[in-house]
């Protein structure tokens, strides 16, 4: 048995995947560290008093957290209230809600973890793992549903906290993942601990984001009793009809072009607990037909009483959006604002600088921008935490492009 005070931290970054564990037993501290998947090295240190040991433990944890380690299964308030960290479309998700993502494959050998995604034939270690289901280029139609069915039939599925839906087969097909949605809906009561759902961990190398055909997920999301966080990639055919959920806190829609009809579904949803909403608006060519006016009901502040983190990103009208947000009633209660990935330039920045409420934000993400150097200087220190990276020099307004559009 592990002592109850054991805490595990992991860092997966580029090629390195390391863990660090600490546990306290009276005045003795046990620290283990190494590559994920190995037992690592263990060190035991004795202190004069239990207090001295716990002080040292707290110091070490601060140090590790500062270095970029995050706690496995750590669900401190900040992690949940903030939207998930920017998930690029180039790498499969490694961590979801601070859990390690493991691949579920009923045909996998019960093999040791490799540096490629670990696969297991059944659900295990659900205190530190969440699971993904996906097919690869060598799999055929039907494989996905068979794998998902096996996961749903696993005796431990009631303890599963996160599920990642990877490529399902022919993602651009107009039928969309309707059969996947039906299967999840039928099994929703079994997924009683499921806090997080990522639908569409599909990479740019696997499919065009603007071609990923989604379906109506409204009923499925509403039926998952513990759901707090949902991330959907792909906007084509995406619907969220009759979405109502008392616990859902965070919604992220990553699209190459988000349509008015999808936005309407969202604006009509009953989500009293929604704290973070992130939308990649995308471009007109790929179905992104939302105008600033369409966002007015959202920006009025009447819709979601708890909303405090807003991302309106990857837009060709990023300046107008910045202006609309800065002039909106909603801005006064926002704690975080993300206007990254789009065509934001000095014009949008002026609107932010002219808005007193912006200074009260805890964070402001303006990454991927077209600012002048002078504007970068003026924006520094605009609020507690501001991201001004990935500045692009454009010859003119027509030379600006959004980050994700292909």
């Amino acid at each position: 048995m592990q002592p109850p005070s054991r805490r595990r931290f992991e860092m997966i970054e580029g090629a390195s995947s390391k863990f660090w564990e600490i546990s306290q037993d009276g005045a003795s501290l046990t620290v283990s560290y190494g590559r994920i998947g190995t037992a690592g090295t263990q060190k035991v240190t004795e202190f004069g008093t239990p207090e001295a040991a716990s002080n040292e433990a707290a110091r070490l944890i601060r140090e590790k957290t500062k270095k970029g380690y995050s706690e496995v299964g750590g669900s401190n308030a900040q992690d949940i209230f903030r939207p998930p960290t920017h998930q690029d479309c180039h790498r499969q998700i490694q961590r979801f809600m601070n859990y390690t993502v493991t691949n579920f494959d009923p045909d996998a050998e019960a093999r040791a973890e490799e540096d490629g995604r670990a696969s297991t034939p059944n659900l295990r270690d659900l205190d530190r793992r969440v699971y993904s289901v996906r097919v690869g280029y060598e799999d055929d139609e039907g494989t996905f549903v068979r794998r998902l069915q096996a996961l749903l039939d696993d005796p431990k599925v009631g303890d599963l906290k996160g599920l990642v839906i990877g490529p399902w087969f022919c993602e651009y097909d107009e039928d969309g993942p309707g059969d996947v949605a039906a299967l999840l809906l039928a099994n929703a009561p079994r997924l009683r601990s499921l806090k997080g759902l990522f639908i569409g961990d599909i990479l740019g190398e696997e499919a065009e984001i603007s071609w990923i055909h989604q379906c109506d997920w409204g009923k499925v999301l509403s039926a998952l009793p513990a759901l707090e966080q949902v991330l959907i990639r792909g906007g084509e055919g995406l619907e969220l009809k009759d979405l109502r959920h008392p616990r859902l806190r965070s919604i992220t829609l990553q699209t190459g072009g988000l349509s008015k009809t999808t936005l309407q579904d969202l604006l009509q949803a009953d989500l009293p607990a929604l704290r973070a909403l992130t939308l990649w608006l995308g471009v007109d060519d790929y179905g992104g037909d939302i105008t600033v006016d369409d966002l007015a009901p959202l920006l009025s502040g009447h819709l979601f009483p708890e909303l405090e983190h807003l991302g309106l990103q990857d837009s060709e009208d990023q300046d107008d959006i910045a202006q609309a947000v800065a002039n909106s009633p909603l801005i006064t209660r926002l704690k975080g604002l993300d206007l990254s990935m789009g065509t934001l330039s000095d014009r949008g920045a002026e609107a932010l600088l002219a808005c007193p409420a912006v200074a009260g934000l805890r964070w402001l993400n303006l990454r991927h921008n077209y600012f002048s150097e002078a504007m970068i200087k003026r924006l520094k220190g605009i609020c507690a935490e501001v991201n001004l990276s990935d500045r692009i020099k454009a010859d003119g307004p027509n030379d600006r492009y959004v980050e994700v559009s292909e």
Partner: protein
Amino acid sequence: MPSPYTLLIGEAGSRRNLAWQKACDRAGMECRELSWYDALTAPERIRLPAHGTLRVDSPGTDARVWSLLSGLPASLPGERRPGRAWAAGLRQALCNFELCIPKSQWLSPATTIMTMVDKWATYTHLQSKVPQPITQLAGPTIEALLDQMATLSWGQAFIKPRFGSSGAGVVALRRGPRGRLRATTPARLEAGRVFNHKRLLSTEDPVIIAQLLNPVLEDGALLQRWIPKLSAPQGPMDFRVVVVGGHATVRVARVGQGPITNLHLNAARAQLSEVLSPEAEARVVNAAESTARCFSEATLVGVDLALDLAHRPYVLECNAWGDHLPGLLWHEKDCQDWQVQHILQALGRPGGTGEVAA
């Protein structure tokens, strides 16, 4: 014992020639240069003492040389050059060189150079020996090509000119809903002619796609399955491993803005260790060395590889002249140094006794 000596047939005044010359200088090896133009027009100048080594480098971009080899009029700067006639001329030229200098004196013999210049020959040569994406000879028109992809049930594929390398003319093609197509390529159409650019662009216009693809297909192309590549956070990546005398030397990861990752398309260079775990790096290097073993007579093989999403390596292509990686070192030696050392070692020379990459 006579001093070591090389004859270099290359593009006059090119950075490639300079790099080779510098490596020879560093090792104290004499090197005589002969331009491809002179080698083709004055073959009597292809002479080499019995202990010398012949290095035949890429004919490069010289328009006169290209015309001599292909028998076709010179193209406009940057214009795509058809490869089949060029490759046929190259084969003939190498045969002629072989009449002047026996095979045993070639750094890499003509046959292996020709196999690597012809991507279909390379594919069939390596088949069932190393992992490669499934590849077929592409149909002669866009219609035939799309039928072929439909029969194979492939949603995405690369179309690569059969002859030559460097990403010129390569098209990443996707089939989408309702018959939609999307092509990503450095090629551009200007007044009906195809030019190569330094930036990848995507288009969904079926007319443009056909105009870009048809000349490539007519000239002979491969249809290669597009296996999703393991990507770096900035974009898709593949790897070039330069194998010299059977041992992996200089290696580099190329991180692209899109699916085609050649360095001249402004892909970013990275160390393998920056983007891969030690285990994955070892798999890439081992696969490259296994590939080079299939060309046992070639001193130099530049192997391009990628990893799939399960971190399994596969070979994309082999380059007989895949050593143009300026500024990249492995154990303080560049690609040319490693080859010079290999020559000296073969001659049992001091300076050639240094360690070889394990």
